[in-house]
């Protein structure tokens, strides 16, 4: 058998087994709790919620928040991270405090944020920005700090101005690490979107769809929510890796020249 086909088949074995058990459990009546819904019911719920628009408005609300928070947090993170990386004084002044604050579990901020910003969207976006801020800041900092000395020395030999040095040497060299930070920021921000929607229970969103389903004992809606959360996470992942591959494509080429 073709090795790739075999790999795919093997990978599909466990999910198929689980799905089969799930279906059989329902089909042969091994359990009769209300909590146990067949796969088909989840699909019907998906169709129903998509048709009446609830699914889309929830998704839109969550993604909108996610994007707003992520953009604010990652821009702030890049700026602070760059400053930390370029100035040793600044790093000595701010770095230790930042590392201490970083230790506070992300979600522990929510109660404080809710007092400062209320329960609406501003609070959620503030929280999401915070979630994206830390990984972006730390990775930007590390990326810039670990730019090889040889590179900066060569740039000095060529009498680069400070701006040129930044633009042509430091940033390109630090970019892979910055991307790791942005990638992590995306993941954290999505996690935080859910957290914010659970804990600041106002408005619409996927998190609210999930809690709503749980409160009413609608297992189909809960399962649907879990699937959507996974799919969105997967999509974010995909977009991030694609973007990174594209932006860093020059690296492969330029080193190949020499």
């Amino acid at each position, binding site marked *: 058998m073709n090795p790739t086909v075999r790999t795919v088949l093997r990978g599909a074995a466990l999910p198929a087994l689980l799905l089969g058990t799930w279906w059989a459990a329902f089909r042969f009546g091994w359990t009769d709790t209300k909590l146990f819904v067949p796969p088909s019911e989840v699909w019907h719920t998906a169709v129903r919620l998509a048709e009446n628009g609830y699914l889309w408005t929830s998704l839109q609300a969550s993604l909108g928040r996610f994007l707003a928070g992520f953009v604010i947090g990652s821009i702030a993170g890049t700026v602070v991270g760059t400053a930390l990386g370029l100035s040793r004084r600044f790093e000595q*002044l701010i770095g230790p405090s930042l590392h201490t604050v970083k*230790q506070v*579990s992300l979600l522990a901020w929510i109660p*404080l944020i809710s007092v400062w910003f209320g329960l609406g969207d501003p609070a959620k976006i503030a929280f999401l920005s915070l979630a994206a801020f830390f990984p972006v800041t730390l990775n930007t900092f590390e990326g810039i*700090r670990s730019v090889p000395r040889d590179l900066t020395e060569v740039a000095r030999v060529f009498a680069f101005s400070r701006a040129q040095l930044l633009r042509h040497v430091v940033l390109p060299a630090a970019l892979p690490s910055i991307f790791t930070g942005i990638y*992590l920021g995306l993941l954290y921000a999505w996690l935080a979107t859910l957290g914010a929607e659970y804990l600041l229970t106002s408005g619409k969103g996927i998190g609210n769809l999930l809690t709503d389903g749980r409160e009413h004992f609608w*297992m189909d809606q809960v399962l649907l929510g879990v699937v959507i*959360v996974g799919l969105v996470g997967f999509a974010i992942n995909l977009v991030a890796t694609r973007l990174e591959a594209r932006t860093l494509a020059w690296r492969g080429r330029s080193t190949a020249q020499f």
Partner: protein
Amino acid sequence: MTSTTASLPLATAAVTSARASPWRRRGVGLLLAWPFPLAVLLLWQLGAQFEWIPPQILPAPLVVAQTFSDLWATGELQDHLLISLARVLYGFSLGTGLGLLLGVSMGLSPVVKDYLYPTFRVFAQVPSLGWLPLLMMLVGIDEALKIILIAKAAFVPVTMNTYNGLRNVPTSLIEVSKVFRFTRWQLLRHVVFPAAFPTLWTGIRYGLTHAWLALVAVELLASSEGLGFLIVYGRQLFQLDVVLTAVVVVGAVGFALDKVLALVEGRLLRWRREAF
């Protein structure tokens, strides 16, 4: 799941400059770490003193310190702390155990990897918080829910790093050991595991960090004791001093847990260096 580079803190910051002696530079670094937080604290205290900010929004640092010592004196804080720590310990041990098992078996056997890896990826893709409502319906909101969620949080990074660590052992090392006619066991014991250890340990450290994060999340959402509950409780009564106290403790414990693992790592790696 490339979380390996996320917060390995400032390893690069210790790059030594040729001029000043390391001790002197360290001293300067330690001194410079203080002005910023002290200025913030001072500003905060002054803000409270002159009532720039209403105390319901931000209680003064001295009030928070007072609340801290009150809660500590009554033993309330320690009770919550112990409950939280026990939960993390159970969940983390369970998740790490399972993660090591799965990671090692996938890392060593391509067949196992073919069967389990895709499902694992899908499972890992849904964040712990996404599983929470489902689990609440399946197992209720008791202790089991908390342990399962914390275990899940630790399980994913441990599995991922164990698997990657084992898979990325340099082939040159394996070739050398083939030249020496190592048995399979010798190869694992003396080459593969030592080479994979740093990555594996990073996974465990991440597992602990994630477990702590998950603990706070479940305790905020479904709990009647523990540090997370203390935060919710303080928030409901609008006692931000209690909230801030609990937040500080959460941060300090997270910091301490990571430090402990870092120390253990130093020990284990030193042993490794001596052994070779």
